[in-house]
Each structure stands twice: as C-alpha cells, then as structure tokens.
C-alpha cells in the first residue's frame, strides 16, 4: 500500500546541508498498524510528510496504491491526499478560526465529501468531545485538540492514517485514550503509520520499524 524507495532528504545547501533522511526504503501493507520508532531529530516527521506528499524528497520515490505520488501534478496530489490520507500532526493542528465542529466539517468538505454536520458531530462524540463541539482551539486542552485533529482525519474515512507523535506531551490517561481511538480506527480497516519515540506504545502496533534500522 505504501512503498518508500531509496528516499533521501537534504535541507539547505553547501556547508549548511543537513541530511534528514538518507536512502530510506520500507513497505507498509494494507490493514497494518505500523509504528516507526526513532530518537528525536532522526527524520521521522520528515518521512511522514514525504509520504503525505507535503514535501518532496531530494531523491527516491514514494508509491501509494502503486502510484508514484511525486509524478502527480500538485492538483492531483492534493486531491489524492484529500481523499485517501488522514493526517494527525505532532503539534497543535486545529484551525484557530474554526470551532471543533467546523474543523471536522472542513475535513469532509476538503475531501470532496458532502458537508454533514451530524457525521462530524458523531466523530467528535466518538472522541469523547460531546461537550466541546463548539469550542475553539484556545478553549481546549492539548489532548482535546489532538482528539479534534484525529476526528477531522478520520471523518472522511481515509485509506491511510499518518500520525506524527499523536501522544507527545500528553498525560498517560489522555495518551491511552488516543491510542484506543487509533486502535478502533485500525480495527475498522484503516492502515496506520505512526511515528513516535515512545517505545512503550508498541503493543498497539502490528509491526514496528526502527528508523535507524530501516534501509
């Protein structure tokens, strides 16, 4: 389903060059829940963003459903991402001018699906946010914001869910509740790739990859 082939990413030029990723290759199959472990600064976030098509690799190819995403035009890639990929970011990723419900509804609309407030509401209720439906980002805790982002990513029923440290900086209870939600999404058929430095979460994964071992 996801094939990363000899991907490298270099930031900057000349003496200021930083090699974030070098010749990385791996595959993820349909229905897997893969965790990619690695220390901070090891390029985990970069590889996730390359797979999502949010940034181009310096070298290498990424195939999603047998399609090389970097051979697509920007418009095609945006459409592909909107329809097939759900993204959960490490840091605050709610749109601050929209409340929780509108954030989730926007996820639906950008995916080209019918704007369905009831469906969006249900997605938030599933995340335990029934009393925070109309709250804005500044009225929510970090854990609640993260759950809104997961609801927004899942509401469009993506084939692939890419999560970047979805439990980072959260207390153990919130961490557990978020992981349970991801587990449910996986059980519902979503392929998940999650990057994290927290190896204690490996029990949720069907497969674990170590960033420094992946070649």
């Amino acid at each position, binding site marked *: 389903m996801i094939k990363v082939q000899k991907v490298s990413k270099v930031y900057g030029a000349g003496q200021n060059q930083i090699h974030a990723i070098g010749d990385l290759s791996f595959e993820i199959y349909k229905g897997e829940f893969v965790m990619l472990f690695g220390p901070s600064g090891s390029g985990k976030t970069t590889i996730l*963003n390359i797979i999502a098509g*949010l940034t181009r690799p310096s070298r290498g190819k990424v195939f999603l459903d047998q399609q090389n995403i970097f051979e697509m035009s920007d418009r095609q890639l945006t459409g592909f991402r*909107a329809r097939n990929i759900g993204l959960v*970011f490490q840091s605050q990723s709610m*749109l*601050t*001018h929209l409340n929780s419900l509108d954030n989730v509804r926007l*996820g639906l609309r*950008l995916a080209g699906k019918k704007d369905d407030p009831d469906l969006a509401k249900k997605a938030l209720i599933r995340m335990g946010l029934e009393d925070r439906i109309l709250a804005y980002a500044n009225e929510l805790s970090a854990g609640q914001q993260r759950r809104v982002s997961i609801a927004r990513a899942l509401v469009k029923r993506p084939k692939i869910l890419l999560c970047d440290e979805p439990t980072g900086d959260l207390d153990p209870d919130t961490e557990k509740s978020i992981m349970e939600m991801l587990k449910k999404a996986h059980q519902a058929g979503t392929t998940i790739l999650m990057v994290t430095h927290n190896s204690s979460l490996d029990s949720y994964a069907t497969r674990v990859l170590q960033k420094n071992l992946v070649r």
Partner: protein
Amino acid sequence: MKHFLAAYLVRKNIRRRLFRYLILVVSVAAAVGMQVSAALIDRMSRESLELGLKRLGADLVAVPAGLDAELQKSYLTGDAAIFYMDRSIQDRISGFDFVAQTSPQLFIKSLANAGCCSLWNIYLVGFDPDTDFTIKPWLAPRFTRGAERKIGADEVLAGAALGLEEGNTLRFYGQSFKVGGILSPTGMGLDRAVFIPIRSAYRMARESKTKAEQELDLSPDKISAVLIKLKAEKDGGLPAYRAAFELEQRIPEISILQPEELAMKIQQNLSTVLAGLRSASYAIWSATALLIALVFAMATNERKREIGLMRAMGATRGLIFRMIMMEALLVGGTGSLIGLLCSTGLVLGFSSLISQSLGVPFYQPGLGKLVPLSLTALALALLTGMIAGLYPALRASRMEPYQAIRSGE
C-alpha cells in the same frame, strides 16, 4: 462548490479577526470617501456654475460702482445684496451701440411671512416681465405647460430651493402673492430667491406705509442692477471685456460684473481647494493600498501554519489564492461602499455649508450622475484591493505545505 468553501472560510476568518479587518475597511472607506467627495464637489459645482451662468442669461451685469463683489457673493450664496442706483442708468446703458437688450433688477430683503409655510428673510428680486430675458426661460417645464403665459401683478416666481409649490401664497410687506411658477434648480444662490414683477415691488413699497408693520423705503426711480445682453460681434457688438471697460469708463457710477470672469474666478478658487483635497486623497489612497498589501502580507505570514494545514488537509493552491483574494476584495468592496455612502451623504447633506465655505455654487446631482461616479469609485477600490492582495495571495498559494506548517510553528 469550491467558491462557496472559499467564501465560507473567509467569513469565518473575518469573524475571528474582526478588529483587523475593521481597521482596513475604515482606511479604504476614508480614501474612497475623500476621492468621491472631491469628485462630487468638483463636478457638481462646475455643473452648477454652468447652469447658473446660463440662467443669468446676461453677458454683463451693471451695479452701483464698487458693489460688483457683493452681487457676485449674492449670486453664489443667495445672501441678499441690497443696493440701489438711479433708474436712468438703464437708459444710458441701452444707448450704447454694442448693447442689444437691457432689463432692470431690484433687490429687496423681505420681512417675510409666508401663508403656506415658514420662510423668513426671503431674498426678493424684482424683474421687469416686459424686458426680461433671463427669468422666464427657466420656469420649470411642468408649470409652463407649453404655452407662455403672462405673470400677473399678484404673482411671483419662486426659486427651486425654497420648497414652494405653485399656488402657495406668500405675504410680503402686508401684501399677498401667489406663487405662479417654480424656476428649475441651478444650485446657485438665486435658487433661494423669490422673483417679483418690478411694478408690483414698487406698489408693495408704496402701500407698505399703510399695510405693513415696517415700511419699505423704495423709490420707483431706483433699481439695483441692469442685466445687459450684447450684440453679436458680427452685428457691431464688442467682446464682453471691452464692452465692460467701455461702460465703466463712460458711466463712472457703475461697476460691471462679467459672468464669464466670475466663472473663471470660481473655478480658480475651486481648483485650489480641490487640488488639496485630491492630493490628500491620493496620499491616503497610496497609503491604504500599501497598508492592505502589508497587512495581508503580515497576515499571510502569520497564517502560514494555518495555510499549510489546510493544504495538508486537501485545500488546493487555487482555494488558498481565492480565499486571500476574496478577503482583499471584501475589504476593498466594503470599505469603498461605506466611503461612498458616507461621502455622498455628507456632501449632499451639507451642500449649503460646503457651498458657503468654499464660495462655490452647488447643484444637487441626480442618480444619472451619481451612479457612474459611484461605480468608478467602487471599481477603483476593488482594483486597489485586488492589486494589494495579489502578491500575498500568490505567495500563500505557492508555499510548500510542510514548510508552511514548520515555519508557522
């Protein structure tokens, strides 16, 4: 669908950042307001002047020596200019070869009391219906009904700005007069005058001793001004400036007012004021365009993360571009509409005050004049918004999503 989505996002964004947008809207409104005010005052006073001078219908106006400036002020503002000279002067002027026609005018400040309505201190202008060539042609068409009719001894003609109607009764110095016609508007001061047949004015003065609370001291051998029509040059006439010089030389008791010269003087006055107003409005306009561009560039920078996130969620470059442009156009459009309405309302509402303080006549424009002017201002403001929003919109739409998210963190 995507257009609705962009509009939806713009609406949500503006609601969350209302203060910033209000500041921008007010700036655009100020710039547009100044432009429209300048254009309105310029256009309408020029038009008014043209109409007013046509209404005057005379090539020259003779008044007692040294009082031409007072008459000029009176024509523009409608303030009564009361002065008299000997009636024989009209005959002396008529005696010149280059003069085709003359008609006397008599200025009276009334202690008015209208039967129909509250009017005080009306400026009364006596005219001679037999020799008049300046008043009757300007009777509003709906009152003339095609056929010319004689103005009765108990009738007066009213200026358009007095708000009178045909058939209203006015009382001056104990005598009642019926409004026999309304003159079409020019925006000049004489729109606020009542025109009375000169013989009725003399009779009114004579009978005021017994009928009025206050006597009108006016001798039938006195007039205030002589309106002069010159012969065409091909028929032995002289250019206006030479005729004026000749008359002032040969009749030292008079000064000559040249309407053409008056027009030039007013336009000079006006152009100084308008040049200032225009320079200020151009400066504000440029500052506003810069402000919009700057604020949108800053906002785009500040919203990098938000834009990156939206791109990550599936927003196309086109959607981001449309969203920023819509915001800029909305600011331009709303600001210009507010500026347009406020400036038009203020200029029209305070037209008398503007007319008096600038020393220019002012004719209230009709919709036919206002609509093209409004559309031009609106188009100009939208164009400014568009140009100012273009660069930030392009920049925002071309950002790589990941870089945008990271740089906004």
